[in-house]
């Protein structure tokens, strides 16, 4: 790694050639925020069109391009990279390591992302338009019937997949090899644990996704018929492969979010996490179960009844470890000394809204009832409760929690709280009514709807504009903090926070833990 104790290089080359986990983490975080804004813009177009019945702003075909790109950009561009950014910043600091285990690969796994997304976004300007088959890209709509831009979509999925796989290998290698002496597995902070498990999920399922898109590529260009019934293939096979990736994927998104909340809630409750070991086991249980529940997305494809029953029971079972997590967080708060700084507000917001999303998940797991819920707005409401109020709220909480540590400057607390309340209200006004229209019979992915759904859709759109606008406040607050926030020099920053990162100076120097810290023998996990 060259000579020791040097600072960052100057100018653009610092960012292009960096192998420093903090720099790479920062780039991931900014990149994912940019994607969050892009995906959010698509969402605003969707909600503007759905503001009233009738077609007003866009054509149905373009509407489908918007829903597709919104989903893809949010899942692969905003949520996943944001947590990788967090992992880069925090894992070495939490386990007492000087950097990630594979720093050059780390640089590469970030830098292939922007071209990947550029390729995806460029499809908007191609003949026939961008992909318009939904983020789940079911064949044959995404093969025989897709616009020519689908080939670019396939390659961009490959690129994102390679990036994720390299990122996860790096995280696994770091956690297994770089822990400071005395940092046993069962002393690792929960954020590290959840990422450790997530990384294994990623390594297991991203190649499956790559396989699915490669089969599409073959069907489109090389005359195979994996998914074409006319050639002896099977369109349902596509769905099995997609969801074998897709269901673990939703846990890839949520497990690191669990990790964040498990750091924040004890800190602001000034009380250790209620059941550290059971949290670790519950995370592992969720991860293992997530491989055997994929067909709960396919209850209506016409599986044999034995298959339906198996997937129904397995899915219901996931509610048990999920419940264990929720009970644990609540018990951690119980008889703590709570205070409500912005990170805590977002974590409590997560806890309440994620739990609601878990309940609707349990309802959806009931196969016969899912015949009525499937592919309606009820499902849209469910997954936004778990992915936005779950993953995004938790990510927001993380930024407020660690930003003072990273920058040595304090964000504006009042503005943070305002951001929370606008987000919380905006989110619920957007998504709660979607449960109603879904149950009343509104299908998802439609550009127009019957008149009885009009009022709730208008509410949803207004909520979405409010939630969207509140992100500008967030951006402003973060930039203002970095540029001119009040300085903090206390190592601890938050009085209740625990973990090695809080033993480092604030802000931490460019290189940290070049000499491994000594971990005391007592179990002092967060």
């Amino acid at each position, binding site marked *: 790694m060259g000579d020791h104790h040097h600072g960052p290089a100057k100018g653009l080359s610092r960012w292009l050639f960096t192998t420093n986990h903090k720099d790479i983490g920062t780039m991931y975080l900014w990149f994912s925020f940019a994607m969050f804004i892009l995906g959010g813009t698509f969402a605003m177009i969707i909600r503007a069109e759905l503001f009233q019945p*009738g077609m007003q702003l866009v054509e149905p075909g373009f509407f489908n391009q918007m829903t597709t790109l919104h989903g893809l950009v949010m899942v692969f561009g905003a949520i996943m990279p944001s947590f990788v950014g967090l992992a880069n910043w925090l894992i070495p600091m939490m386990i007492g390591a000087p950097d990630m285990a594979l720093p050059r690969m780390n640089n590469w796994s970030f830098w292939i992302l922007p071209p990947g997304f550029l390729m995806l976004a460029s499809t908007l300007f191609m003949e026939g338009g961008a992909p*318009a088959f939904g983020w789940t890209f079911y064949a044959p709509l995404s093969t025989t019937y897709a616009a020519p831009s689908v080939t670019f979509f396939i390659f961009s999925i490959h690129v994102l997949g390679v990036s994720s796989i390299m990122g996860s290998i790096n995280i696994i290698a770091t956690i297994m090899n770089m822990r400071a002496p005395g940092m046993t597995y069962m002393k690792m902070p929960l954020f590290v644990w959840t990422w450790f498990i997530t990384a294994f999920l990623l390594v297991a399922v991203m190649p499956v996704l790559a396989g699915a898109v490669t089969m599409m590529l073959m069907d489109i260009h090389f005359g195979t018929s994996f998914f074409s019934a006319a050639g002896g293939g099977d369109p349902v096979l596509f769905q099995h492969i997609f969801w074998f990736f897709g269901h673990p994927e939703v846990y890839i998104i949520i497990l690191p979010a669990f990790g964040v909340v498990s750091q924040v809630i004890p800190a602001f409750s000034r009380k250790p996490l209620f059941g550290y070991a059971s949290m670790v086991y519950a995370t592992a249980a969720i991860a293992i179960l997530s491989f055997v529940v994929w067909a709960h997305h396919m209850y209506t494809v016409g599986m044999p009844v034995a298959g339906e029953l198996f997937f129904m029971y397995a899915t219901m079972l996931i509610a048990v470890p999920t419940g264990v997590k929720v009970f644990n967080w609540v018990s951690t708060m119980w008889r703590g000394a709570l205070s409500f700084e912005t990170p805590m507000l977002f974590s409590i917001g997560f806890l309440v809204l994620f739990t609601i999303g878990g309940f609707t998940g349990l309802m959806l797991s009931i196969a*016969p009832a899912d015949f009525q819920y499937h592919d309606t707005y009820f499902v849209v409401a469910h997954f936004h409760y778990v992915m936005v109020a779950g993953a995004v709220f938790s990510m927001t909480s993380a930024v407020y929690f660690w930003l003072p540590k990273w920058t040595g400057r304090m964000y504006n607390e009042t503005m943070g709280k305002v951001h929370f309340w606008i987000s919380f209200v905006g989110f619920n006004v957007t998504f709660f009514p979607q449960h109603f229209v879904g149950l009343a019979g509104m299908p998802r992915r439609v550009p127009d709807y019957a008149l009885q759904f009009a009022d709730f859709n208008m509410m949803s759109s207004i909520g979405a504009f409010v939630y969207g606008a509140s992100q500008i406040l967030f951006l402003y607050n973060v930039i203002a903090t970095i540029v001119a926030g009040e300085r903090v020099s206390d190592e601890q920053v938050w009085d209740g926070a625990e973990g090695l990162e809080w033993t480092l100076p604030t802000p931490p120097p460019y290189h940290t833990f070049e000499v491994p810290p000594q971990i005391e023998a007592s179990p002092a996990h967060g």
Partner: protein
Amino acid sequence: MSIKKSLMTAGAALSALPMSVLAQNQVNMSPGVTRVGAEIYDLHMLIMIICIVIGIGVFGVMLYSIVYHRKSKGFEPSQFHESTKVEIAWTVVPFLILIGMAVPATSTLLEVYDNDDAELDILVTGHQWKWRYEYLNAEGENVSFFSNLATPQEEIYNSEAKGEHYLLEVDEPLVIPIDTKVRFLITANDVIHSWWVPEIAVKRDAIPGFINEAWSKVDQEGIYRGQCTELCGSYHGFMPIVVHAVTQDEFQGWMSAKRADKAAQVAASSVDLSLDALMSEGEAVYQTQCLACHGAQGEGGVGKAISGSSIAMGDIGVHLDVGIKGVAGTAMQAFGAQLTDVEMAAVITYQRNAFGNNTGDVVQPSDVALHKQG
């Protein structure tokens, strides 16, 4: 509630829609008009209520903490953690509750899957973007027809007020008898669709190359509306389903009328029609079948322009070929089976004479019949 009210007032001010038609806002699943639908509804309510009760418990504890266990009130944090007893309890109790849910869920599911002993079989085929229904009949000929969105483009594009069943109305509904176990055999012609009518509790994917089964036994006469629920391309939102459930007598009457219609159609295709008659029929067919892709003025869109088209102004045989057989690998589908010979003749004539194409050509039903024979 007050937030909702004020939002709605704001909405009303912004909206050009008559608020009177937006009166009812259904917020829950409907039990519908079948026994299975009612069971599903009960299951849904049961699970939802269990979730709400657990939710009240969890959120209640949390709220208590938030209110009373505050640092600002000087509350001293206790440091308790780990309790094997508690942890076993909150693993085992939810597990038992889940078993309680799984029992009724399993029995309802088995019922949903009991496709035996149907008294009437209907083949449902999803097409981009319409449904085709075929009554499979052991004695005598099958009856079949397409069911298209009937909402006019003017309503969709806001130049006319929207009707009561905006987007949920078709030119020809599916008709089924009540108190009869009807089995739906569901498939698709192009991409995956999904056939859903909430009130009769049927949702099943329509997958090319597969035939899925579902059934329903409707208790009450009435009109039940649904939509395609699997994204199937641009006009996914515009392929509704309308089911008329009628008494068995009415059903038999309807069936005989359909058969008579079909015979009449065969007879009609040997009669020549005037240019005017063909043009007015052709315009109607164009608007339901062609307009979505080829544009109101024949200007094109998803499909090519008709106005000035070398096919619509060139050889009649090629034009008929495109209409009847479609163009493989494109959104232009084969209309040969969906349109009667009269309709096909009319729409081809219309395309050759409308939008400034003034070729003066007249295509007769007999020409279509002849072309189809090769």
